[in-house]
């Protein structure tokens, strides 16, 4: 074991702010991605996707 006490752990040798900001934002963004993906999949399942995705039309129908 590396740490004498929990407060030592959180302190990270004086660099707690840096370490936990790094890990914290990583964890937060990962969780955010997971939540957003689950929401997106749920919406898509229910057939009410917010993205309007138009399938390809016949040639001449697009281009500007």
């Amino acid at each position, binding site marked *: 074991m590396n740490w004498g006490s929990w407060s030592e752990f959180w302190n990270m040798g004086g*660099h707690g702010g*840096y370490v936990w900001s790094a890990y914290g934002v990583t964890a937060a963004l990962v969780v955010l991605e997971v939540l957003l*993906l689950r929401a997106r999949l749920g919406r898509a399942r229910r057939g009410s996707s917010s993205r309007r*995705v138009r399938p390809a039309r016949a040639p001449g129908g697009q281009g500007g």
Partner: protein
Amino acid sequence: MAESSPPRTGFHLFRYAAPPEFFRLAGRAVPCFGVLALLLGGAGLYLGFFVAPVDAQQGQVYRIMFVHVPAAWMAMFIYVVMAFWAAMGLVFNTRMSAILASGLAPTGALMAFLSLWTGALWGRPAWGTYWDWDARMTSTLILLFLYMGFMALHSAIDDVRRADRAAGVLALVGVVNVPIIYFSVQWWNTLHQGSSITLGKAPSIATPMLAAMLVMTFAFWMYCIAAALTRARAIVLERERDSDWVRALAGEGA
């Protein structure tokens, strides 16, 4: 077209090029990868914080390495995989390949961003500045721009198949460029530093540190696969919205 139904003959390579097949397979795979990510992540963090010793020069703050390095590797790796699927999509004209590429991009961009963020937070206590334009960080920043360019181009084109193909070409051009960019940025950096190249962000790397780093890298890898597959599944449902099998799914309320 062989796309819409699995081939009956022996060669099943393109079976999962059919969206419903992919959807089902990925649906079973994602939880496995998710669980692996959690287990490996837990193990890696334990190794990183409770087994790996203090570093002689950097003290405790070097432990940021255990997220910084995996994120950086994933950012690069995902771009290559993305380019691979883009190439598959262009060569075989399979929609599923392009969907996989699109599913990977945001996760790759996230990894690139995290690499930069954690790198900055590591750099400040360890080397004095949040950002110092070193070769690796600058290359990662450019990589982030390449990811965002891919996503921007795809969303700028209304016709989704044209978007797939155009972004695919961009991804291929990017993947050819990435080694060149990396090399030239390294050259640029040593040029302007004058003194000897400072290689190690992690100086002498002790075994427990290496172990923790590798385990965390695998954890990130498993996570990225799960995230990309989930996104691909969502894209499949969005695009195939009007087809029978998707309607049936919505009806099930599953």
